[in-house]
Structure formats: C-alpha cells, structure tokens
C-alpha cells in the first residue's frame, strides 16, 4: 500500500488484482446487476489510481476504495434516473451475465436473485446492507463512507433487512420458525412502555 501511494505501478496493480473482484460484485450489488458494472469498475480504479498518492492510511485501503466505488455508483445512478425521467420510461437494467436456461450456474442464479432483491431497496438502504452484510465492513467504516452517524446506519440497516426478508426468504433452505411476517401486527411489549432492553453500542465492531 505504501509503495502504491509512493507511485509504484506494480504495487498498485497488485492492489487491483486483489480487489477487482470484490469491487465488481459491490458495484453489481449496488446497481442491481447493471450491465454497466464493468465500466463502473474501471472508473473506480482509475479514480483510485489518480488519488492514490493522497491516500494517508487513516482508513483501511478497502474502506477507501469502497468509498470511491459508492460515489461512482451514486453518480451513475443519478444519471440513470435523470435519463429515465427525461425519456419518460423506466430503463430496465439488464441482468449482466444472464445466459439461457440450462447452463446457468446455481451461483449465478442465486446472485442475480439477491441483486434483484437489493435493487428493490432505495439506494440509501441498499448501500448500507451491501457494505455490511455482503462485504463485511464495520459500522464505523460504513458511517465514514456514507457520511452518516453510526446510529443512523444501524437504524437504516435494520429497516433495509426488514424490507429484504420477503424477497430473500425463498432462498433460505430452512423454514422460518417464527410465525408472522417481519413488522407483524404483534406489537413489542417494549414499545408500549413495558421495559425495553437498553444498552450502549460499543465503538468496536466484529470484523468479517
């Protein structure tokens, strides 16, 4: 990392080799399997290349790179929304590596189902759940990337997972043992003032 920041092309290429696949999957997840994912990945690494000498190591390289990716995707999605609103029609995002019938690998099918579910979320929630649950970033890292307080990240993550459950449940082999959908009509006794568990959330987070 130090060598890359000092201008070593070989060191930067090694970082690219290490992170290009996760970044590609991150971009796909954030864009709902957009066919432009590959171009966006290139944009991410070009921006990283231009900015690498300014990387001071005050965060992990992965966090820094993912912040760039989130910003690149955000710009892309804004442009896409603008195009859609101007054309008056929703441009369906192609599903990228879709192939015909029988030769689809189960992994690709599963991934695409997950990406479709993620695409149903508002961008703000999608970014959080992808960074946390797919890529395992810590809360403090996510808070820096999205420039929101940690408490906001936790609340939004909770909501995002609530919204995803109905779409992801079919992918789970084991049936849910709890009756009732998420956010059911059964109210929590704590919300009626019966005594909610209280606790300070420590700063440290489990690293994936």
């Amino acid at each position, binding site marked *: 990392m130090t060598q890359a920041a000092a201008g070593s092309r070989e060191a930067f290429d090694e970082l690219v080799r290490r992170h290009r696949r996760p970044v590609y999957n991150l971009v796909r997840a954030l864009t709902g399997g957009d066919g432009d994912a590959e171009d966006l990945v290139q944009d991410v690494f070009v921006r990283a290349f231009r900015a690498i000498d300014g990387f001071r190591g005050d965060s992990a390289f992965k966090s820094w790179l993912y912040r760039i990716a989130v910003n690149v995707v955000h710009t892309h999605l804004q442009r896409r929304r603008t195009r859609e609103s101007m054309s008056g029609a929703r441009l369906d995002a192609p599903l990228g590596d879709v192939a015909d019938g029988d030769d689809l690998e189960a992994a690709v099918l599963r991934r695409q189902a997950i990406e479709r579910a993620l695409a149903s979320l508002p961008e703000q929630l999608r970014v959080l759940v*992808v960074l946390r649950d797919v890529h395992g970033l810590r809360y403090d890292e996510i808070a820096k990337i999205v420039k929101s307080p940690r408490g906001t990240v936790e609340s939004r993550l909770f909501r995002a997972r609530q919204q995803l459950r109905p779409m992801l449940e079919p992918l789970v082999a084991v049936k849910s043992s709890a009756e009732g959908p998420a956010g059911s009509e059964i109210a929590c006794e704590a919300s009626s003032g019966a005594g909610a568990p209280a606790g300070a*959330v420590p700063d440290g987070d489990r690293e994936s």
Partner: protein
Amino acid sequence: MRLVAAAVDGGVAPGPLDALVAHVERCPACAVEVETQMLVKRVLGAAPMLPLPAGAAGRLAARLDDEARRTKRAVDWRTLTMKLVPVAACLVVIAAVLHHAIRRPDAVEVSAAIADWGRDEIRALQSPRIDHAASDLRLIGVLLIEADHDAAAGKN
C-alpha cells in the same frame, strides 16, 4: 430496533445483550425482528462472489495503462522543469563570477596607469618649489594609489 441490528452484528456489550436476549425470549414481535435480521444477514453473507466477465481484467489493465501514460506525460514535464532550476541557478552563478573576473583586469590596468602617474607626482613632490599643503593631500592620494597598485600586483 437499531439495538437489534447491532446485536445481530455482534456490536452490543454483554450486559445489554443479555437484557435483549431476555426480552426477545418473551416478546414474539421482537423475536420475529431478530430472526429477520439474522436471516437477511445470513443470505447476503453467503451471496456468491461472481468472477469478472471474460476479458474484463485485461480491459481494466489497458485502461489503467492509458491513465498511467497520460499521468506520466504530465509528471515528466514537471520533473524536467524541476531539473532545470538548479542548472539555471548554476548558470547565474557562473555568469556572476565571470563578470566579476572580467572586470578585475581592467581595474588592475587602470590602477597601474594611476600608479605611474603617482610616481611622477612623487618626483614632483620632491621638488623644493611645491606648495606643501597641496602636496600633502596629493601625497596621501599618491600613497593610496600606490597601495592599490601593490595590492593588484600582489593578487596577479
């Protein structure tokens, strides 16, 4: 509710976590929420990581090569400019030294001419018919010129 999300991610201290667990055990609604959080986290955490499309790695490398070439042209220009600054400084110093060195012989030649004139004056001062007050001043001037000439001769 954000406590539930944090708890599922292992971000709650043991004490509050025990209280949460105790609550969840007697609250069906919260039990559902916890299960929702865990289910989604589990599914997404196990999401397969797709490989890059065929040829994408090569295209990415080519784009970075283009970027590196574009950046290198800019850097070379700056590097060249930085290298020229000390060269320019050396040239200025050399020019100043040469200018000073070139002037000195003229000063010596002038000094020698004045010294010759000075010696003529000395002979004139030795004449008994000279005005002594004026001759004192002229003597001092001659002595100064002689000293200057000696100094120039000594350096050469």
